[in-house]
Each structure stands twice: as C-alpha cells, then as structure tokens.
C-alpha cells in the first residue's frame, strides 16, 4: 500500500435530484436488447427494512464476453455496435433496475468472471463498490479469492442467479442479507 501525499477529496451523497442530470438514453443498454448474446442484469435495491430504494443509481463496468477489457469511448452516445463495457441505470419507483449486457468472460485464466458495480443513493453518504459474480459450481466459488475470504453465508450476496435470459442480483444496503461492499488498497476511511 502506498501512502498518498495528497489527501483525498471526500465523497457526498448523490442526493435526490440527480434524475434529470445523470441517467441518459440507453445508459442501461451496454448492448442492444435484441442482440443474440444479450442478457439482462436485473434486480432491486433495498434498504435495511427490505423496502425498495426508488432513488438509487447503479453503474456497471465489465469485460466483454471473451474476457477482454475494452477501452472504447461512446458510452454516453451509443452507436449500436461498440461495446464500451460501462453502463448506468437508475432504480424505478419500485426499486428495480435493469441493464442489458453480455455475460463477461474471465479476464484471467482460472478466475471467475464478474461485473464490477458502483452503488449511489439518496441517504447513502458515499458510493459503495461491489461485484456481481456469474453463477458457478460451489467448488469454483469457494476457490475464488474474494469469495473464499467471506463467511459462507455472505458469499451468496455477490453471486447472481442466472435463469437463462436474465441475471438476477439484488443490492441490500443493510440488514440480514446485506450485500458485501468492498474497499480497495488506497481507500481511506
């Protein structure tokens, strides 16, 4: 871990009024919904009482289906064929969100693929990071370093369910089923 000479600027809540500023047309469509390999990533954002959070915003960032990390601009004005690997979706009045993307491939041999996710919400004072792992056999999940470092009962909060056409992943900000949120080297409290 390196020590930073410059102290970081603090984060703040996204607040209630980002809805006319940050979400944009096709932000949630990393690939067009009709594409043959398209998969939906859907779920809800829930608070500590299990109530839906209607003013949350999620962003995802992922490799392509072959596990390649793309460095393509164009996420804000999608051209219909360039995969940029990044998307943004707000929750609706029932706390639901929906992305259309592809199942990412593994970026490193022998490792499980995942979609990196950032969570923002009114009432949430700083962004949260998490990972959405694709489903895999229990033995494979137990062999993934991050998942292996978690108590078994919390591991499942980072693994989506795949029904063939959609990956289901709920974000629990708090409570018994609280999602595992991540901090990385260099992050300060």
């Amino acid at each position: 871990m390196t020590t930073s000479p410059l102290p970081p600027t603090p984060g703040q809540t996204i607040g209630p009024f980002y809805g006319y500023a940050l979400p944009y047309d096709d932000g949630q469509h990393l690939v067009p919904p009709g594409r043959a390999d398209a998969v939906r990533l859907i779920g809800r954002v829930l608070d500590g009482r299990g109530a839906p959070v209607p003013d949350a915003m999620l962003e995802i960032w992922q490799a392509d289906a072959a596990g390649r990390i793309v460095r393509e601009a164009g996420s804000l004005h999608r051209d219909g064929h360039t995969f940029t690997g990044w998307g943004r979706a707000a929750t609706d009045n029932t706390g639901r969100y929906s992305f259309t993307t592809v199942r990412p491939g593994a970026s490193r041999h022998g490792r499980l693929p995942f979609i990196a996710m950032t969570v923002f919400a009114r009432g949430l004072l700083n962004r949260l990071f998490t990972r959405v792992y694709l489903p895999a056999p229990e033995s494979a999940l137990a062999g993934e370093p991050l998942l292996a470092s978690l108590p078994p009962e919390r591991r499942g909060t980072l693994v989506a369910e795949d029904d063939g056409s959609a990956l289901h992943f709920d974000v629990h900000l708090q409570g018994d089923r609280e999602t595992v949120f991540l901090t990385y080297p260099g992050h300060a409290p």
Partner: protein
Amino acid sequence: MTTTPTRDAQPPADTTSSDAAASSQADVSAEIEAIAEKYQRDATDRPETQPRLDYPPYRSSILRHPTKDLHHTDPEAIETVAPCFGHQDVDVLESDLTIQHGGEPIGERMVVTGRVLDGDGRPVANQLVEIWQANAAGRYIHKRDQHHAPVDPNFTGVGRALTGPDGSYRFTTIKPGPYPWRNHGNAWRPAHIHFSLFGTAFTQRMITQMYFPGDPLFALDPIYQAIVDQQARDRLVATYDHEVTQHEWNTGYRWDIVLTGSHSTPMEREDDQ
C-alpha cells in the same frame, strides 16, 4: 401539489409538519455536536477523510448504510482501469450552463475551474466530469423538487466536460441558491454543486458536492457535517479566485479534486498504447 405561490406568498404550512421533520434544528445540531466532540476526544493520528456512512443526523442514512465493515480486497484487472469517454460523448458547449436556452439565466454568473488529480498529484486527463445544481433561487429542474421557488426557464443546471491533459475542467454557470429539505424542521442545504468524477481506475469513482466559502449553513447541515473531520470537510469548499473572475462578466472559484483508490498499473499503460 398545493396552491401556486403568489408574490406575497407565506411559507407553505406543511414545511415543518411533514413526516421526516419531527426533529428541530436544535435537536439535529446537538446530535452533530455530540458526534464531533466524540471524534475530537478519540482523535488518532489517522484523521478521517470521508463521510461516515452511519450518520443518524442525516435521517435518510439510517436505513441505507451498511452495518458490516467494508471488505478489503485487491482490485482485479477490470477494477484497475476506468471507462473511457471521448468527444463523441461530450460536446464542448456542455460546460457552459448559461447558454442552453434562448435567454440568459438569472443569477450570479460564475466560473468554477480546477483540476482532477490522483493521490500522487498526477492529473487525470481526458476523463468525464458531470455537474448538476439548483438555480439561483435554490430550485432544481426535477419533478420531485417541491420547493416553492421559481424555475428559471433559461437554466437547467446540468453540465458535462472532459478534463484536459493537465486534468483541468472549467464550467460557466450561475451560483446556486441554498434550498430547504425535509430532514428536520427548517432544514436548509448550504449552496452546492454536485460533482460526478471518474479516475484512471474503477476504484476511484466518486460523487461529491462542492460548497462556497463562508456559508452560514455549514454548521447546521448534516450532510456536510457527516464528514466529521474539519480539514476533510474544508476540502469540499471552493476558493474564491480573482484571477478566474473576469472584468464585467463573471466571478470565479477554484476547486481541485483528489481521487482516492489504486492507481494505474503496467497493464493499463500497455492498453493505452
């Protein structure tokens, strides 16, 4: 929802009786003060740099903060790089919030400029900066903003820019007004501009708020005070800069942003070529 305010309208009767406004400012200020005192009493040699996620004076945070510790992990490859944005994403005109309509918005025209840096002081070049804000009267163009203050037909309050090679950004806008909210009775937010920032790594993503020097609402605001360390809070306050102010045109503020998190890796440099 209620009546249209007239020129001599009194404050709407429901501003202090809504569900979330059960506490008074004195109650909330006492809670803020107690947390600040405890922080100072327990002072360590590692001051806090970020807001508390668990900060009850901000009522909406009570059910929306994780109660378990954030889990330490090393970033994987995808997390060591960040999404790319280019000129197909952002028009240069989007950095001027005063020219988006047929006429000029009401208020104090101002420029806010600064640099986006990583923790080592290196500029974050060619990266997306997004802002949104209330108008000069403290009103957002948002369907849920019920503040009885006028909408400005010439001001939307949304801007975007790409940073330059030196990490610099520059927006021309109108100084936002403070606005009431329903955290507690007679709650008002200090004037602020919301900023959304990306770094060179996914882990540097952040959203924050920029404030103006000397705002009398600072001590009363549980969102600003959720950063319990005074020096850390000060980092969200822009500096008035007369070099940015222009003769008979605009006032000027300077605000630099330092991102946290891991930095570029050999793999990223390879990919950039």
